[in-house]
């Protein structure tokens, strides 16, 4: 307790100097916070935008027993047929289990070329949308078309949504009939006749979505070579508050009772191959390395301030020695003092950062500029927030303070009591 009392007293007795140190640490922490929350925001934008279309997530997955091992061995080409299972039997069983919100099949993604009015548009990534997939349906708006576009009958022409940029950059317009041509998952040439049912206006846009097209899941299944009754993966989403341990065993039991020996696993076990998220996670690593450099430079500042501070406080140190204080106690005392000052500065910086984040997010800065979309990860500038960001700043500043204090204090505390008394007499 004595050590804390002395540290607090020392802080207030050198208030002016400590205010300066707190301000500097606060400014450093503020900018580190903004950098890291920008990176958090990028990842959040990608998750809500392009990844939710191209690499969607569920709470649980149902697949064939061999599906994951074949995927792990990169034998997906050969496994397309052997791992297909009956969709409606499974969805019928699972959707009646308490706690289940949505159950729908999902398929491998394939590409397509689009022929419209004699013009050829190449390399579109198709995303099939299930009628029950409320998550994906909430991620975009439809321009020049109905919001119920996906409820078309399988025997009718396939309704297709393409990105809004095509509306301005091509002659394609809503209602145009077209043919999709590509290879199905068995590598057989496949075609589908359809029409432009509207244009996609994603809530979180991305340049990678410019060549995306959305079609109803049932139409997509037939395009990729499956019958309406086949799939090799089923998504299960839970109702709010439901946890894996509450529901996964029940799904397993129900399927086994029906004589279906399938692999049911949670999101934690899923291996996502999400290149967009990988890019922004790599950018985050770069940002973290940049913050490390900033902290490294800050460490020299702390060292300098600590040694100058101690040089000016020889009288005080000498008095402590005269009173019989030992070096370890003084080391702890001054380390604690510096730590408290820097930690307070860090907290203040983060607090200002949080205010700045609220203000920036409230401004709702948006743009459809491709450069902006790439840098920000979406069409809205959003500063995210994660525990790792706060822990990184507080932890980084704290560890750095302690390390620099310990390395600097040894020299600063080498004061002879005689010299200290002399200084007192003068």
């Amino acid at each position, binding site marked *: 307790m004595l050590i804390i009392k002395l540290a607090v007293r020392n802080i207030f007795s050198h208030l002016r100097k400590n205010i300066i140190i707190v301000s500097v640490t606060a400014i450093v922490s503020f900018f580190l916070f903004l950098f890291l929350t920008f990176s958090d925001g990028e990842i959040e934008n990608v998750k809500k935008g392009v990844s939710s279309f191209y690499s969607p997530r569920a709470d649980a997955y149902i697949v064939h027993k061999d599906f994951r091992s074949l995927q792990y061995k990169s034998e997906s080409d050969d496994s397309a*047929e052997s791992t297909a299972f009956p969709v409606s039997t499974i969805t019928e069983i699972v959707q009646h289990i308490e706690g289940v919100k949505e159950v729908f099949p999902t398929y491998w993604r394939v590409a397509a070329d689009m*022929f419209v009015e*004699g013009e*050829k548009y190449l390399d579109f990534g198709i995303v099939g949308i299930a009628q029950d997939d409320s998550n994906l349906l909430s991620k975009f708006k439809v321009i020049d078309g109905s919001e119920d576009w996906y409820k078309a009958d399988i025997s009718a022409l396939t309704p297709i949504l393409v990105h809004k940029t095509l509306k301005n950059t091509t002659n394609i317009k809503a209602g145009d009939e077209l*043919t999709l*041509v590509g*290879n*199905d998952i*068995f*590598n*057989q*040439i*496949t*075609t*589908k*006749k359809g029409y432009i049912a509207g244009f996609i206006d994603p809530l979180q846009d991305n340049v990678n979505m410019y060549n995306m097209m959305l079609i109803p899941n049932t139409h997509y299944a*037939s395009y990729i*070579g499956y019958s309406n009754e086949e799939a090799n993966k089923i998504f299960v989403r839970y109702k709010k508050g439901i946890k894996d341990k509450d529901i996964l065993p029940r799904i397993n039991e129900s399927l086994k009772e029906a004589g279906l020996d399938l692999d049911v696993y949670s999101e934690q076990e899923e291996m996502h191959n999400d290149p967009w998220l990988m890019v922004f996670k790599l950018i985050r690593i770069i940002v973290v390395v940049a913050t490390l450099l900033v902290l490294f430079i800050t460490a020299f500042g702390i060292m300098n301030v600590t040694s100058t501070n101690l040089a000016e406080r020889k009288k005080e140190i000498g008095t402590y020695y005269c009173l019989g204080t030992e070096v370890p106690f003084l080391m702890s005392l001054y380390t604690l003092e510096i730590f408290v000052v820097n930690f307070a500065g860090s907290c203040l910086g983060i607090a200002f950062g949080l205010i700045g984040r609220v203000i920036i997010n409230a401004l709702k800065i948006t743009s459809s500029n491709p450069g902006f979309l790439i840098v920000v990860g979406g069409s809205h500038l959003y500063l995210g927030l994660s525990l790792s960001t706060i822990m990184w700043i507080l932890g980084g500043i704290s560890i750095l303070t302690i390390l620099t204090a310990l390395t600097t204090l040894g020299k600063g505390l080498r004061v002879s009591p005689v010299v200290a008394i002399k200084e007192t007499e003068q």
Partner: protein
Amino acid sequence: MKHTRLRKNKYTWLGLALIAMCMWSASLAGAQSAPGNASTFSADEIIKKTEQLMYPNSKTDMKLESTYNGKIELYSFTSYARDNNQKIIVRFTAPASMVGSDLLMLDRNVWLYDPKSSREMKIPANQSFGGTGFSYGDILRLNFSDNFTASILSENADSWVLNLDAKLRDAPYHRIELTVSKQFYILLGKCYSRSGDLVKTMEYSKIADVGGGLKPLVVRVSSPLDPKEYSILTIVKESPKTYALNIFNKKNLSARMEEK
């Protein structure tokens, strides 16, 4: 299978005699092989004989001319094939950018050799061949008997129209309508997708013998989806030869054992 059979009655004898005379004179006039007729050949036999003629074990020099919007691209290559096109090596001789980017097809798998990285890459058989109307599968996998179940749709004096349904889901096309002459060479191929859309038309022409027997040397591939684009494949020279099985492996794409 739809077989057209001639009803034999006393009123048709004269007609039959006349047809037989015409066919005999045609064979005397230089037809490569005896023309088939509905009563003697099943669809499977027609396909087998067609493959023997069209895709013999051989070394074949070919040219490919691709036209899109009036712009022409030319490719030259040599293929080494055996087992009805089930095993093929294709070596490019032009353009310079393609030399070394050789291909190997083994059963249903296609590999492309990348000379820059000295590696073999597995590629989808339906991938477009240098942006032309041909896919790698069209050049390498024109194997009907293993991929399709054949039946005769119709027949006339000169040709059969065969319906080829894919045996497995990984056949290059869901269905092919093939017009085969009674001399067992292909005249026309129409490739359909599972949805029933015509995706590719292959028109065969210029019947001549360049070493592998009398057969069409030129095939023009077009698609109704994109009328501005078509490709023409021409057989320049054919040398029948059965290559050893061991040359048809990935490592040989760089070793070039068939040339030794």
